[in-house]
């Protein structure tokens, strides 16, 4: 480090929906992630701090928090790329109720996943022949482009339409619905298209593209939602959806 700082000051949100930021001084190290910093505070400075993590290596999505105003995976965010003048501000993810400190209640996020019919509906039994799905078919390419979502909630936290419209199902739920719409094996598309065509569905999206900007998996929910808009409009015009 060119500036000989040895300490980082960190403001962490303490409390629930009401609360305040509290400052802590943490040793600055090379190759330090934001999760390292939060963990240091909890283990050495204040054991009452609540936060979530699991894998520490960017595959589970549990450690997502708001870092200097932006939603990120804290285990994959190096302090050196985000600290401003030796300072960090860390809060819980936006758009979700705060349970305590840095941990949010993600129930609404997962309930909307169900409301968007983001679950596979089987069409065959074990006695039927297996569907041959070509990986280079356009539908499968579309599904594969959106399939790597690990439900971390960052897109949901980044989305202003989620903030403004409590009914909006959100980018992750709609993105998953899109992958299933493109799954040739799925039998639930009539109900799924109706679900995402209702108020709060895909048409509420204004294409701000914050979801795409912040998704750590480089997914593009805006594009998935655009696909849903096309499908639902076509289905509506054919009389398959009542609205």
């Amino acid at each position, binding site marked *: 480090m060119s500036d000989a700082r040895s300490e980082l000051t960190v403001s962490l949100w303490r409390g629930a929906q009401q609360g305040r930021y509290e400052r802590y001084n943490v040793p600055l190290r090379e190759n330090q992630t934001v999760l390292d910093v939060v963990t240091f505070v909890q283990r050495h400075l204040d054991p009452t701090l609540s936060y979530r993590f699991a894998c520490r290596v960017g595959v589970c999505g549990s450690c997502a928090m708001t870092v200097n105003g932006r939603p990120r995976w804290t285990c994959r965010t190096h302090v050196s790329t985000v600290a401003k003048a030796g300072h960090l501000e860390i809060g819980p993810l936006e758009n979700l109720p705060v349970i305590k400190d840095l941990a949010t209640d993600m129930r609404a996020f997962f309930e909307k996943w169900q409301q968007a019919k983001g679950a596979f509906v089987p069409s065959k039994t074990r006695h039927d022949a297996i569907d041959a799905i070509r990986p280079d078919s356009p539908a499968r390419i579309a599904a594969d482009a959106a399939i790597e979502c690990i439900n971390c909630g960052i897109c949901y936290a980044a989305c202003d*339409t989620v903030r*403004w*419209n409590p009914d909006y199902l959100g980018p992750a739920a709609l993105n998953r619905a899109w992958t299933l719409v493109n799954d040739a094996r799925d039998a639930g598309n009539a109900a799924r298209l109706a679900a995402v*065509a*209702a*108020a709060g*569905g895909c*048409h*509420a999206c204004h294409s701000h593209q914050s979801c795409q900007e912040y998704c750590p998996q480089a997914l593009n929910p805006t594009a998935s939602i655009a696909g849903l*808009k096309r499908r*639902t*409009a076509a*289905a*509506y*015009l054919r009389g398959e*959806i009542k*609205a």
Partner: protein
Amino acid sequence: MNVRLYVWQRATAALMLPLVLVHVTVIFYATRRGMTAADILARTRGSIVWAALYGTFVIAAAIHAAIGVRNVLTEWSPLGERAASLFTVAFGAALLLLGLRAVAAVVL
């Protein structure tokens, strides 16, 4: 916004793309010529083309603006869905009435 409102809003938007171009051209022409009311009305009175173009423009704009404002109301104001829908119909009707009246004023 649901699929029905979406389809109406996007369809009227697409319909208005050429109409806006026509309108901006008309504005440029009228300002360049420094037209008086008499000049304008001489061109519009009795014109079927004018009536058709601007009549369509008014209808499309009334629907499009009403749905657009409804979206803003549901997201940025405390109004609920029902109040917003009521507003949409009222605002759209007002625009339609005033707009068709204006078209009639210059065409008839």
